[in-house]
């Protein structure tokens, strides 16, 4: 009964989404106020029905209803309850339902926090979001119904993949999807602006906080995924250039460009067309990511069960969205005027170069990700000779990212200090010379402190130090510019939050660079065969293997290794890596033991039993690895601080006042142009 309610709720949500996608947009075009006014209540209703549907699926997981095919395939009665709930998005159908619910949630938030926007704008934005929802709800109902019944019901579920039975599954997908789907709001704003012909500084100010928060969620989601892979896959890697990782990185890179481009559009009215194009691309890449994951066209650790029908649907939807929005862009963009002029050396130019670099990075990732498909496609239509399947190795991505990162990071230091319109280069050089000298010294000293010279390490250090020193300089300069007669607290408060947020996020980038550089250059590891009592020394720590004991978890049995860690002959801790076998699927799982520290992680995982109580053991010493995720946290915090800037609220209040006055003056004001 409950699953049928869930499915029915989904159908109602689809009907509401269709209404939401048609009437508000038409209403805005034809200036029919009641149609525009439908936008909010219909969108809210749509969200409520998807939420009901989602709750029904959670219910069938929690109550072990194995007459539902999806539940039977992704859960088991022995599964701890938190994983039953998270198991809802552990497979294709449920994670797609989560996608749809996130879209509903974002739309719901737009209905709440858009009181100050012109009605036409709100109607169009919500309408566009409705059209996207139609696509995804249709996809769910036609190809991926999570409520499909299994008759006769299975006696018990097939269990959730043991890799997914982890805290990471509970938070990583929802966070990532919030980010992915969040770009749909920026997209909807861009499309609404194209339809309405209104694309000005005020428009940029409306879409900026939405874009920043979506970007923050995506950053957090990617960071969580990386952290999860690090501790769960058992060999301590943190980024693999896996197609699905790339799929989330591409919209994030373009989103980063979009945030910066929106800043120019808001402050200087320039880059308008480019900003709109970036918003379209960011969302298209989100959809492309979905296509890559769902269609099974690419082999990946994330691969879901493949189904050509699903791939075709998503591909069709992707093409519809991309072609549709680009046609609209080609038709309407020429009507959008150019912004303010600027000199070759100016903040605008620097942000332009920043955008170009980020776009190139994203394009290079895209090329590397879909290259195998391109080759296969070209071969299948006979344009090139048939070749064996190819794959693009991780060194490709590294070879491109490092050289592009250098100018990008250089600009991170310069940009915030440069003036709009025309910057004074000699003056900037003079201002930043100490920052540069300090960074260079740091870069020379650090590798020796870490135990050996390495050009790559020095490069990483100079980049990180450059960001931090210039940020400090920039903050100090900004502080000096405030009224010196006021007390400290007031002066700090006079600096806008978006300024703090920007530097916080930039410093996050620096912290990430430190982590990545250090762990890539100074990591040490050993794969060893250990008999009971054997020791191995890695990174100044001695690990002694004291044997293995057998233990039992709720749905697995495990061999737990006891490894004592000694430093200078003193025992400092015991690490207990496990080798688990999950009973339902008889799938082995390595659970690494990790001791996290500020300066280093110790990471131990069990291989296989060798003979006579001996095991193969893998031991790592990973300097600064936790800085990678600390950096991501700083970026996310930077985003949150920036979007809480009071100018978005003050501006909103002013808009509201202006709107109220305008209403009095001309009750039927239409901002429609062209």
């Amino acid at each position, binding site marked *: 009964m409950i699953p049928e309610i869930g499915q029915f709720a989904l159908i109602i949500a689809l009907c509401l989404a269709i209404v939401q996608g048609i009437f508000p947009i038409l209403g805005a075009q034809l200036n029919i106020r009641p149609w525009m006014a439908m936008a909010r209540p219909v969108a809210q209703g749509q969200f409520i029905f998807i939420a009901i549907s989602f709750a029904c699926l959670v219910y069938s997981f929690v109550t072990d209803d194995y007459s539902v095919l999806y539940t039977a*395939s992704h859960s088991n009665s022995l599964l701890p309850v938190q994983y039953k709930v998270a198991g809802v998005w552990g497979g294709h159908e449920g994670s797609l339902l989560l996608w749809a619910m996130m879209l509903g949630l974002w739309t719901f938030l737009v209905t709440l926090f858009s009181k100050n926007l012109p009605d036409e704008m709100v109607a169009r934005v919500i309408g566009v979001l409705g059209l996207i929802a139609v696509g995804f709800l249709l996809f769910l109902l036609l190809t991926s119904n999570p409520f499909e019944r299994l008759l006769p019901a299975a006696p018990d579920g097939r269990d959730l*993949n043991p890799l997914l039975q982890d805290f990471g599954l509970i938070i990583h997908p929802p966070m990532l999807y919030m980010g992915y789907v969040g770009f749909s709001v920026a997209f909807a704003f861009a499309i609404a602006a194209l339809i309405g012909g209104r694309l000005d500084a005020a428009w940029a100010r409306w879409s900026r906080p939405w874009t920043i928060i979506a970007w923050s969620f995506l950053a957090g989601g990617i960071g969580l995924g990386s952290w999860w892979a690090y501790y769960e896959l058992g060999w301590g890697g943190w980024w693999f250039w896996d197609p699905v990782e790339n799929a989330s990185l591409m919209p994030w890179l373009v989103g980063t460009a979009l945030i910066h481009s929106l800043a120019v559009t808001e402050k200087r009215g320039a880059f308008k067309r480019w900003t709109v194009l970036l918003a379209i691309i960011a969302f298209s890449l989100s959809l492309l990511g979905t296509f890559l994951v769902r269609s099974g066209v690419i082999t990946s650790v994330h*691969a879901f*069960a493949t189904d050509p029908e699903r791939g075709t649907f998503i591909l069709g939807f992707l093409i519809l969205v991309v072609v549709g929005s680009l046609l609209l862009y080609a038709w309407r963009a020429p009507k959008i005027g150019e912004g303010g002029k600027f000199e070759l050396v100016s903040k605008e130019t620097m942000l332009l170069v920043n955008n170009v670099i980020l776009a190139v990075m994203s394009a290079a990732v895209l090329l590397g990700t879909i*290259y195998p498909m391109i080759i296969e496609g070209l071969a299948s239509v006979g344009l090139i000779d048939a070749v064996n*399947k190819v*794959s693009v*190795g991780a060194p490709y991505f590294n*070879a491109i990212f490092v050289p592009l990162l250098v100018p990008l990071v250089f600009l991170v230091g310069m940009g915030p200090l440069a003036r709009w319109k025309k910057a004074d280069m000699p003056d900037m050089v003079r201002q930043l010379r100490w920052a540069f000298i300090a960074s260079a010294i740091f870069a020379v000293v650090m590798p020796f402190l870490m135990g050996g010279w390495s050009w790559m390490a020095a490069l990483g250090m100079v980049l990180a130090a450059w960001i931090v020193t210039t940020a400090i300089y920039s903050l100090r300069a900004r502080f000096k510019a405030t009224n010196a007669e006021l007390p400290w607290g007031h002066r700090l408060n006079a600096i806008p939050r978006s300024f703090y947020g920007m530097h916080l996020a930039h410093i996050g980038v620096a912290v990430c660079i430190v982590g990545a550089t250090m762990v890539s250059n100074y990591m040490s590891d050993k794969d060893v065969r250990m008999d009971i009592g054997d020791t191995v020394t890695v990174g100044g720590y001695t690990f002694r293997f004291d044997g293995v004991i057998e233990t039992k978890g709720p749905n697995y049995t495990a061999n737990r290794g006891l490894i004592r860690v000694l430093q200078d002959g003193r025992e400092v801790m015991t690490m207990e890596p496990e080798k688990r076998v999950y009973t339902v699927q008889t799938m082995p799982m390595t659970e690494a033991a990790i001791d996290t520290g500020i300066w280093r992680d110790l990471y131990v*995982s069990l291989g296989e039993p060798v003979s006579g109580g001996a095991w193969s053991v893998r031991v790592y010493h990973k300097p600064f690895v936790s800085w990678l995720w600390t950096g991501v946290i700083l970026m996310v915090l930077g985003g949150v601080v920036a979007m809480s800037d009071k100018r978005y609220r003050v501006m909103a209040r002013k808009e509201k006042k202006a709107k109220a006055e305008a209403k009095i003056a001309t009750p039927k004001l239409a901002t429609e142009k062209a």
Partner: protein
Amino acid sequence: MKARYKRMMFIVLGLVAVAAIAALILNALQSNINHFFSPTEVVAHQAPQDRTFRLGGLVEVGSLEREDDGLTLQFKITDNAEAVTVKYTGILPDLFSEGQGVVAQGKLGNGGVFMAEEVLAKHDETYMPPEVADALEKAEDAAAQGAAK
């Protein structure tokens, strides 16, 4: 004149940047593409001698041998027609087992032994039973062979 000079600067700098980036990407792509070969193709000397490539198939049942150090392993990858011996030092991924699908990345060494630098076993969302994996691999191998001809 000033405006024209400025525009020229933009264009020249832009072109230089585009050329540099294109060279960078193409060069990186050129040197990092790994081709996939099946055991049959490796036995037929179709795989390169000095380049990294990927070898895929099933781990032949009963072929896994461990040397005394406990870490150096030897096993055979088969496509049910031919088999290639693979040597690997290190710890294998969780899902590695005899009869399962596997992809190894490395180079051909002396005597036709494949020296693997990396062994990838599939971490599938829905657990794939061996016979399904088997069927898939067979189909894949057939396709790869068909493509090679």
